[in-house]
């Protein structure tokens, strides 16, 4: 259990470092797949098989695909970019290191001696029962939240940007020109 957890954890850390430092955006997105899959392995090592499967389904199956689609739609370049990381990255790194030291010290002081007993497998049925019995109200609230997010995403993507407005104006101008030409043609036919 601990060997598998440590192996998956090391993989997750290495992949996470590559996600935040890679100079190619698409490579960062693909390293995100590795990092999320390794975290799913950590969940499995902690006997949380349902969470591990949901992690693979939702994160690797849906979220990363969505990210890759967004990269394609924003015409993200595939060559290495020098300015993908800002000039203030040393400051960001120092903030992250200080935060890691503070959080790590706090965690070690608080839970340094605790141990996780080996949990019997087969936790998926327990989680399913808990979700639909004890946590059924948050579950329903969450479905409303998902619906709201769905509607929000649709409304945002339907909103015309400035270039789209220019396109519609151009289309309208074309239509006006067409109708004017049609009327002129009609008049010409009348004359004939």
């Amino acid at each position, binding site marked *: 259990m601990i060997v598998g957890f440590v192996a998956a954890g090391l993989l997750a850390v290495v992949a996470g470092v590559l996600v935040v430092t890679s100079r190619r955006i698409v490579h960062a997105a693909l390293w*995100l797949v590795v990092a999320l899959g390794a975290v799913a392995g950590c969940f499995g090592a902690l006997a*949380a098989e*349902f969470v591990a499967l949901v992690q693979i389904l939702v994160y690797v199956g*849906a979220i990363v695909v969505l990210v890759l689609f967004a990269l394609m739609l924003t015409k993200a370049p595939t060559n290495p970019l020098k300015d993908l990381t800002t000039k203030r*990255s040393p400051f960001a790194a120092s903030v992250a290191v200080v935060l890691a030291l503070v959080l*790590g010290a706090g*965690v070690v002081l608080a839970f340094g001696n605790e141990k996780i007993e080996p949990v019997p497998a087969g936790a998926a049925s327990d989680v399913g029962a808990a979700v639909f019995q004890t946590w059924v109200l948050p579950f329903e609230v969450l479905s409303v939240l998902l619906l709201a997010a769905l509607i929000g995403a649709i409304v945002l993507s339907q909103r015309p940007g400035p270039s789209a407005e220019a396109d519609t104006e151009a289309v309208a101008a074309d239509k006006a020109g067409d109708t004017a030409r049609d009327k002129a043609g009609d008049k010409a036919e009348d004359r004939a």
Partner: protein
Amino acid sequence: MPLIVPLLLAVVLFCLGVYGVLARRNAITVLMSVELMLNAVNLNLVAFDAWRVDQLATGQTAAVFVITIAAAEIGLGLAIVLLLFRGHGHADTDRARDLVEAE
């Protein structure tokens, strides 16, 4: 297994996410770093659930809920990024300084 191992892993992943959010320039990479941070939180939830041997499976249920909220968040976030790209022609967080669209 000592409880400290998953907690330290979560600390490292969370701080990697913090670094990514602060240092990355493309908005989509910022969102990817946010996903790393959410994963660290999930790892904490599952670790404490395994530590407490909770009959209600509170930690695992909360982790599943957080995954759902992360899906909603990335959907909305990417819609906003695409709107930014359509309006300005880039998805650069440093250059997106206007609160309103330029007339």
